[in-house]
């Protein structure tokens, strides 16, 4: 399963607007996407679920692992990587 390791640099972490943007982007792809809080070593959750993403408690500077499987998996990973690399468009 393709996956990628990233560091969340936004000051809010995966919370508030960044969390919403993250889920919205993931939701635009048909494949299954999961995200894992590597820093606190928590199990992976559905990246399209805002509540699940919030319960990961990802703060600024945390490392996350995103995995995708199925149709457009590579494109989905790229889109989420870009979103985080561009600091959620800020």
């Amino acid at each position: 399963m393709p996956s990628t390791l990233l560091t969340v640099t936004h000051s809010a972490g995966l919370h508030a607007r960044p969390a919403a943007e993250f889920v919205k982007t993931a939701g635009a792809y048909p494949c299954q996407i999961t995200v894992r809080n590597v820093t606190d070593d928590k199990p992976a959750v559905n990246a399209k679920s805002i509540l699940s993403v919030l319960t990961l408690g990802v703060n600024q500077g945390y490392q996350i692992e995103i995995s995708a499987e199925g149709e457009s998996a590579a494109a989905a990973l790229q889109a989420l990587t870009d979103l985080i690399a561009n600091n959620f468009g800020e």
Partner: protein
Amino acid sequence: MQHCKGLPASGGIAIGKAWVYRPQRIKVPRHPVEDSEQEWQRLQHAFACARTQLQELAARAQTAAGKEEAAIFAAHQLFLEDAELLAAVQHLIQDEHLNAEAAVADSFEHYAEMLLALEDTYFQARAQDVRDVKQRVLRLLSGKENDVPILSAAAIVIAEDLTPSDTIQFDRCNILGICTVRGGPTSHTVILARALGVPAVVSAPLDLSKIAEGAMVVLDGDSGEVIVGATPETIAQARQRADSWQQQRAVELAASHQPALTRDGHQVEVVANVGSLEDAQQALAMGAEGIGLLRTEFLYLNRCQLPAENEQVEIYRRIFEVMAGRPVVVRTLDIGGDKPAPYLHIQTESNPFLGWRAIRMMSERPDILINQLSALLIAAAKTTTDLRIMLPLVSCLGEVKQAKTLFDQAASVLREQGYQLPEVQFGIMIEVPSAALLASHFALQVDFFSIGTNDLTQYTLAVDRTNERVASLASPYHPAVLKLIAETIRAAHAHGKWVGMCGEFAGDPMAAPLLLGLGLDEFSMAPASIPTVKQAIRRWRWDECKQIAQIALGFATAAAVRTYLQGVVRSS
């Protein structure tokens, strides 16, 4: 009459009748259903109605408060579209044949509890949002969505707790103030109250069952004070205070982002004492030019082990980023036998304020300081902040030398790891008389001093300021304290070093001419005091302040100094 003190959440004084908000507790029926398909339809209908309501609330919040506030309700809509949540509800209804109400209650509560279990208060506060949406859906399912109590006349809303939905639905014209028994300063309700400009106090220990509807309430959103059942005299006083407060505050706030210049053009720095990211944000809003005291104890309290380096880096970095290149003075751990930190093994001491605390832990536990210094340096390397590190409770020169050695050690380890470290100023607090008296020796070793007047007063006058029977003796206006302040500033300036002050004295507008006259370079205080003190500084000429300071130093008692200053303030 109930009189209590809660946490100040949104500034201003509110006076009005009490309106106790007692939302209908919705009973959640729990029973098996035969036609689970029909039950699923019923649930989807409720979700659709809830989404429509939230769209309306988002529009309302956008007009009444702003874009950020509207986003709160946009996020609530996202919860309703959450695939995992919907799958859980669907499973309970269709596979477990549970009724819609119980399925909703259980599924939302699962997430609320997971959020509450997280360490970060930001994430914990989102549990309130999840429960808010849950209540909305339950109300719709019960068919009682219009049973919400309506605030029809101007009043102060008092409640056990308020959700963002509660807060936004009140008519802004009718809501004079907000007081909740629970709730913290980072809740969305507080953010809304601030955006709406409504004075608010949270965590106020009131007994709601004892509040008569329509009782007169005085609420002070700056001090956190709440009086329920206020007498006519109290109300009259409060009203006068509110009027003059508003006039004065408007003038101060209008100029709060201007520099603090005396009439003859002498500029001083006005900065803030903070203990969290929210404080830092508030400080900037109040016109702070930087942070003069970042307390770091919160990182160490109420936990079982020392905070990890990366956890510290994270918290410092967030604050540094918010301060965007402005100076930030960080005080290293100032903890002792009076605070709960079991993992430090501080023994019960008969005199914790004279005991093993603050910088004195360095010899036995150098790891704590090295760890903190490393975290600060890493956070500074990752941001543009102008970091200044400050040691608390220094009483002899050896402590400064030892701390600098540890600092150099931490820095060289980080450089070996490839960090580009910025220039960092190194200073000490002057809060022990020995340090003030030997300031000329200390000045050779450091870049700056910051005078902690609360402890300096306590140690100079031998008064425990937490002991009510003697606390009145603890006045920073005492000429003995003033002489130590004067000597500290003189010695520092003689060596070309700057001096700040981060005790409560710096935030007292009456002390402004005295401190200006003594040559203080930086005034650090609670964020809310910044506009007031800046305005107080602008009233004076520096040359007249120097004369005032010289005269004040000549008195024999604190009372004489105060009387003199009251006189000059009145006649200025």
